[in-house]
């Protein structure tokens, strides 16, 4: 395993994506390597901590967005009731997921959409590739059309769709500003809401100047780092692609089962373009993204923008129900992706993570995420929700997935802000037990021995009394109040701080002598 830098591609499944030779690529190559091969979290985090620029960018971005979220959630007197309602809606959905999925499918078909089911990433990739290739043959009698435009979508990153398309000669263009920065930067997203949260505007300017000309309309030569001008450059670059594209790919924020309506919220209008301009729309979604009724959106469309961007309402809310003749895409496909979700649903503790509406509030609030950004999490889902979702979706086999449940101090800041009240710390503790249970089947390491010994000591007051006396004796011998450096594991503590030594007499001792030991 590489120890120097985290690997770099948006992979989340079990087989490596096929990669075309560099010269034949249509889109910027992401960094090499696969996310699941990332080093264990502590290692990736230690690496990221050395990047002061990243830390400054992250601190600024997370603190700004935290303050915005706090402001707009505080102004609603019924915010806590909304959270409770959001939790209840998603629980009801998950408890009856089979029913609502079939209802959704029936309504989608009734409205003229075509529905496809994918049990894993490979199947989902294959469905999308075949749909695009079929369109190419129908429209132009060429083997494949050249390109598709994309609205930001987590699930397509999860199933590594872009690279699968690239391998088939299909160029997928990201149209969300931040995703464009990431794509042109040969980079990976570090946040689900603000994928380029780790980049500042000078870095963005450099990327635009260097890369845009290789893949389409160049950035103006005199481009400065003013966000307004950066956005304008992106708009011109993208416009060309929007007007040309025949097919769009989208994710989905919510699927309404009772009507077969799909909902996307976004801030830039690029989504609206993707959903209306191309002739064919392929929407890809995880099977958990349902809500039963349109009325449930009343709750969700308040929770999501206030929790994510700190806005009262999303600038663009698009809803589409199948095909409307003469208006918008005339062919609509919906791909429903499982990719591990049914397995998560089977775990009564872990399944609560499936309520997630991908608002990113937990990330922005997390002190650990703030320090290191998204990349050390080795997943398209970083931060607190990533630490509970990724190891459940992928399993606990890889080094990164075994380390993710421990990537938290359990401070609880995430659960406090989560709009659907996912008890992330409880799920982390639950998954830690699964990691340990797995370890216990193998050969016993130092940690297991220490924990067993500790558990034995803590089973009897008299044993803890002896341990306390031993600690006091150590203190009497060492005669120092603080230790400045320790060997072995202790070094991990004393590298950053001194260790306060216990006093000579513990409380038990005091009680026995002052109170004659009466209980």
């Amino acid at each position, binding site marked *: 395993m590489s120890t120097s830098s985290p690997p770099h591609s948006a992979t989340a499944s079990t087989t490596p994506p096929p990669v075309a030779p560099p010269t034949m690529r249509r889109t910027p190559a992401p960094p090499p390597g696969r996310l699941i091969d990332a080093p264990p979290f502590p290692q990736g985090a230690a690496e990221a901590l050395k990047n002061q620029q990243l830390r400054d960018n992250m601190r600024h971005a997370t603190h700004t967005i935290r303050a915005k979220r706090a402001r707009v959630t505080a102004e609603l007197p019924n915010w806590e009731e909304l959270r409770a309602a959001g939790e209840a809606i998603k629980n009801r959905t998950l408890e009856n997921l089979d029913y609502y999925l079939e209802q959704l499918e029936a309504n989608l078909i009734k409205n003229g959409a075509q529905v496809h089911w994918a049990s894993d990433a490979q199947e989902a990739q294959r469905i999308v590739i075949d749909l695009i290739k079929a369109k190419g043959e129908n429209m132009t009698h060429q083997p494949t059309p050249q390109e598709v435009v994309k609205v930001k979508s987590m699930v397509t990153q999860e199933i590594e769709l872009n690279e699968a398309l690239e391998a088939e000669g299909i160029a997928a263009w990201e149209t969300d500003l931040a995703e464009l920065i990431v794509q042109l930067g040969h980079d990976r997203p570090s946040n689900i809401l603000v994928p380029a949260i780790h980049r500042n505007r000078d870095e963005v300017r450099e990327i635009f100047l260097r890369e845009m000309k290789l893949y389409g309309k160049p950035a103006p030569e005199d481009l400065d780092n003013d966000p307004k001008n950066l956005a304008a450059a992106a708009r011109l670059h993208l416009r060309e692609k929007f007007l040309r594209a025949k097919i769009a790919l989208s994710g989905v924020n919510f699927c309404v089962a009772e009507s077969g309506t799909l909902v996307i919220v976004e801030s830039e209008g690029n989504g609206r373009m993707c959903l209306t301009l191309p002739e064919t729309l392929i929407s890809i979604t995880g099977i958990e993204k349902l809500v039963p009724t349109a009325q449930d959106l009343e709750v969700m469309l308040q929770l999501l923008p206030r929790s994510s961007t700190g806005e009262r309402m999303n600038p663009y809310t698009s809803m589409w129900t199948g095909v409307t003749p003469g208006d918008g895409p005339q062919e609509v496909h919906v791909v429903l992706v499982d990719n591990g979700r049914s397995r998560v649903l089977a775990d009564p503790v872990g399944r609560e993570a499936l309520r997630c509406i991908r608002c990113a509030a937990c990330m922005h609030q997390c002190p650990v995420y703030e320090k290191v950004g998204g990349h050390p999490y080795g997943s398209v889902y970083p931060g607190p929700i990533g630490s509970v979702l990724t190891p459940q979706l992928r399993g606990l086999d890889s080094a990164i997935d075994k380390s993710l*449940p421990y990537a938290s101090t359990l401070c609880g800041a995430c659960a406090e802000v989560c709009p659907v009240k996912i008890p992330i710390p409880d799920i982390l503790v639950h998954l830690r037990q699964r990691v340990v249970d797995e370890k216990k089947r193998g050969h016993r390491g130092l940690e297991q021995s220490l*924990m067993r010994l500790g558990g034995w000591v803590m089973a009897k*007051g008299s044993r803890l009394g002896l341990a306390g006396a031993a600690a006091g004796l150590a203190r009497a011998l060492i005669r120092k109040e603080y230790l400045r450096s320790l060997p072995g594991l202790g070094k991990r503590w004393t590298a950053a701080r001194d260790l306060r030594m216990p006093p000579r007499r513990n409380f*038990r001792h005091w009680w026995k002598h002052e109170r004659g030991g009466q209980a």
Partner: protein
Amino acid sequence: MGKTVALFATCINDVMYPETCVATVALLERLGCEVAFPVEQTCCGQIFTNTGYHAEALGAVRAYAEAFSPYDFVVGPSGSCVASVRDQHPLLAAETGDARLMEAVASVVARTYELTEFLIDVLGLEDVGAYFPHTVTFHPTCHAVRMAKVGDRPARLLAQVRGLTLVPLEGADQCCGFGGTFSVKNDALSAALVADKASEVMRTGAEYLVNVDNACLMNIGGRLHREGGAQGGGCTIRTIHLAEILACTEGDGGRWGL
């Protein structure tokens, strides 16, 4: 009043911070309670539970239920340990499927209080007659606030202490980076978080940093001591548990200690 209270010392206070336990005894006795210390108690077991070793935590869970079963009020000077007892012991007991243990745990959990909860909710006191003529900054610890849900009780008690000047702590709700075994497993991150916390504490210019969890104070205090040492002048800001401040009165000049 005249309540009998069983002190849940917690293992870290018993061994590392006995002065906090002594102060808790002194405070509760001053307020008219009779204090008992059932010696079969050990710890909340969260170091095991939170690291994934649930079976290893069961000894502590059983010891807790047995030691405290005779008492109407169990009081612990730690938000984190009390939260672990209340939130985790029932789950751990349920995992064993032992109905008697589940019942015993449920019963004792309902009688378990964090110190500031007991003072305000049971004794009905915010002013405990304390005197502490120092500048103090307060760090609301994560588990006390978000798990034990003590709310603003520690702050309300502090506000009534005579002679005390409270200075605000920037980023007070940020975790200090301790996290039990997190501090060893993710040592680089823990170091970065505690460095931030310690520098905010130093910027307050307070004489003391106070909270209701000595584990966090051990972490931040260790960093403050290191910073002080680097300047060659030793540590200037001291850490102190809230119980020790509340135990001080004008009359005794703070001489409740060991």
